[in-house]
């Protein structure tokens, strides 16, 4: 599975290639609320979104919600699913709680919503690295048949975010391992805890593309070919460009 990048001209670390292979395999499998084919269709919509004419018009508008229309899509998913995948991909810095509430009112569950966000995030993380290196994006995987698990953490409840999340004290056996045992989890770790499998999968990717949690504040040594300061400058500049305060 780690031969994903075998033909590239760059020395991509084995652990990084393996993390991408795991992420791709997980996207292909049935998730918690969407099956494998639907998850791959969500990833495909995330890739299509930058060329969607409606998304382009909204991106250029002072207020994206003032622009109505239909997304250019592959036609495999309901329009509301496409709306979420495209907006999260193309204009995340202007998403608001009113938009989220409207999406839920139009028929998506919070669980379905979180899983869409996660699949888009996985796709963006992997595709952005490819763009940085000038590589073609990886072909999407072939879906694995099966049904979603429909697991919902019993301790999930409304907290500080728009979506329900699981506080560490409310974590059951299944979701306990998604949080670090030696410190309180950052809100970004709790953000998708309504779907624990997505937290595990996404932070597996983050660990290998960025740093493991324990390495983030270990300034006694460097873990990559670039230093902590260089890593954090990149990270902070990306967040500023995306207009993300978090």
């Amino acid at each position, binding site marked *: 599975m780690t031969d994903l990048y075998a033909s590239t001209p*760059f*020395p991509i670390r084995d652990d*990084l290639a393996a993390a991408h292979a795991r992420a791709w395999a997980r996207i292909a499998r049935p998730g918690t609320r969407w099956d494998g084919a639907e998850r791959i269709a969500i990833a495909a919509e995330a890739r299509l979104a930058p060329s969607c004419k409606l998304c382009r018009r909204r991106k250029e508008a002072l207020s994206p919600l003032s622009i109505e229309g239909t997304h250019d899509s592959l036609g495999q998913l309901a329009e509301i699913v496409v709306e*979420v995948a495209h907006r*999260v991909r193309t204009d*995340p*810095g202007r*998403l*608001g*709680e*009113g938009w*989220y509430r409207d999406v839920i009112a139009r028929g998506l569950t919070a669980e379905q919503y979180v899983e869409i*966000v996660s699949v*888009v*995030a996985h796709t*963006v*993380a*992997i*595709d*952005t*690295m490819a*763009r*940085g*290196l000038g590589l073609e994006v990886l072909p999407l995987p072939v879906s694995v048949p099966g049904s979603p698990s429909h697991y919902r953490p019993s301790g999930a409840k409304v907290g*500080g*975010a*728009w*979506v329900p*999340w699981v506080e560490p004290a409310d974590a059951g056996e299944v979701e306990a391992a998604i949080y670090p045992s030696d410190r309180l989890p950052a*809100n970004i770790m*709790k*953000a998708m805890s309504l779907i624990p499998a997505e937290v595990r999968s996404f932070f597996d*990717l*983050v660990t290998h*593309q*960025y740093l493991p949690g324990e390495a*983030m504040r270990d*300034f006694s040594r460097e873990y*990559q*070919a*670039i*230093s*902590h*300061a*260089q*890593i*954090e*400058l*990149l*990270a*902070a*500049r*990306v*967040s*500023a*460009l*995306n207009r*993300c*305060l*978090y």
Partner: protein
Amino acid sequence: MLLRASGRTYDKTYDLAAVTGALAGDGGVPEGDHLVAFAEAVIGEDDGALARARVALMTALGPLGLVDAAGVVGPFNAIDRVADATGIPLEPEKAAASADFRVALDLDRLAIVDRI
């Protein structure tokens, strides 16, 4: 905040204005100008600018540095989306620790709570 923490560990002061683009240059981070140009090009849409930034960064940091830089840009481009799409707030301790430079750099204009 981790950029500042890294600087404190090594007794260096990084100019955080490099983060917002208000300051041209490296911000005190080795090869910071190339890293910022690379991040801007990856997030942007100008493929020619990206090709130039990629060559410049590889010249400065070597192929391993380029791969790791591209790797880092990826998850942060994604983490921003998770944060913005789920409406998570900044943790109180992070808000307190970042209060001074959020004001200095006018970062609170990006606060999620103000969005419709």
